[in-house]
């Protein structure tokens, strides 16, 4: 039975793959059906998972547990303690979160600023020191050549290359002075560096997109048609 089911789903996946590929010829009803099906399934799947993984354990269970504790033992201050598994404190952030819905009521839509402000404040406070340390301090540290780095010619070569091309690129994007005299050749090296960067990015993008197509073709020829051992 499981074999038949597996074969059935492989057929469904193969037909949907072909439906998506049909867009390469031109837009058509099969492509649009597959596209809408994907969006619908992905959203349904995500909403269900979020309900069971976020809404139930973080909102429903704590309040349900607090209700049971209240009816069994009566009120205690512990029921308002956010660190307890079962508590009523969770109602407060729930209410703040619910203010997002005020977006649809023009007369009180200003209230959406409250949850947005809290979320932005929280994430900014967390992000600034972490990003500063990881993306600025550590990167600056790594760009400094020390005496031990000079043991290897390749480190010195690439270090100098990065330094010179960075300066040249910055000069190319420095528009307060006309690019003539000594600035002209340096800015030309800068644009050359940018072009090399674009080329590398294009090559990597091609590689990535080809990988995705190969994955689908392997599925079609190996898992579906079975023409490849």
């Amino acid at each position: 039975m499981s074999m038949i089911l597996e074969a059935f789903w492989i057929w469904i996946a193969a037909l949907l793959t072909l439906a998506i590929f049909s867009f390469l010829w031109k837009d058509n009803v099969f492509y649009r059906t597959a596209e809408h099906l994907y969006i619908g399934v992905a959203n349904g799947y995500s909403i269900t998972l979020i309900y069971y993984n976020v809404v139930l354990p973080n909102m429903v269970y704590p309040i349900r547990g607090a209700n049971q504790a209240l009816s069994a033992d009566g009120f205690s201050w512990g029921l308002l303690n956010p660190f307890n598994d079962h508590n009523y404190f969770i109602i407060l952030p729930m209410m703040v979160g619910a203010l997002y819905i005020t977006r649809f009521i023009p007369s009180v839509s200003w209230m959406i600023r409250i949850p947005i402000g809290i979320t932005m404040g929280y994430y900014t406070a967390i992000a600034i020191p972490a990003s500063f340390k990881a993306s600025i301090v550590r990167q600056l540290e790594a760009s400094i050549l020390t005496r031990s780095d000079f043991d290897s010619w390749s480190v010195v070569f690439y270090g100098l290359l990065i330094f010179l091309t960075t300066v040249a690129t910055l000069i190319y994007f420095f528009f307060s002075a006309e690019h003539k005299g000594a600035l002209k050749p340096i800015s030309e090296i800068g644009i050359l560096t940018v072009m090399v960067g674009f080329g590398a990015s294009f090559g990597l993008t091609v590689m990535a997109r080809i990988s995705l197509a190969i994955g689908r073709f392997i599925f079609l020829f190996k898992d579906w048609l079975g023409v490849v051992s």
Partner: protein
Amino acid sequence: MEQRSVWKKMMDVDRRVIYLIVAVVMIVPIIFPFDLPMKISKRTTEVLFNAIDSFPEQHGVFLISADLNPQDQPELFPMLVAWIRHCFYRDIKVLVMCLYPTSMGLAEQALNQVAMEFNNRAADGIGRRVVYGEDYIFLGYKPPPIVPILGLGENIYDVFPRDFYGNELKSLPMMTKKNIKSYRDMDMIGSLAANTLPITYVAYAQARYGIRVTGGVTAVSVADFYPYLDSEQLTGMLEGMKGAAEYEQLLRQQFPEENGRQLASEGMSSQSSTHIAIILMIVLGNVCYFMNRRYETRGM
């Protein structure tokens, strides 16, 4: 005049002809694969392989954040499978978690697939069995990304009181035997993602808690991660399908009993032939462009 029309015709070729050429060049090597020598990238794949290989046997713990989506499957799924295989070969304990809901199916599929491979081999007397809860645990999904990433540095049981299957995490033998509570009790985090999540792990988990971080990323986003590789904030990295194929090759060299499906290596001959075809088409396109312009400026 006749010559110019040839260049002009080639410039105006229907895009579907290009698609057809690419499809043929891609499909033929899948049906008739050929072997090309593959050089292992020393600063990415080899560094990562050696790092995982140096985890203490039976004591190492590898946390994999499997945040791959169906559209990333050809590049990232083989990496996940290869990492799990490597850990099982070396008796390193594996924790898998997801920060996106659409990653769950693929993460579970990879764990079940590799566990079945090892258990089938063990039934034939080769290698050892792997058991859920003793060798690996699927923690499931927890949003939003930064909250669980920070929470795991304090107490894993607060973030994941239960595993994906509803078992109480504290009751699973792997957690109690290894006394796993936070990042302090793990050797490395592997972040598989098509976005900048590995950098998020570097910023929040490594900078704050000091744990080593590695990444498995899609080829299109590789360039974003090189600065973190140079600064050794990332311990190696796998770059797209090629990185996964290199890792599979290292696994085959190190563990001769490895006979599982080589998901990334299967596509490498096709990858190489398509790259050659695209390079030729770029050259041809440029030749056509310049020849056409030359004839036009001469007024022919």
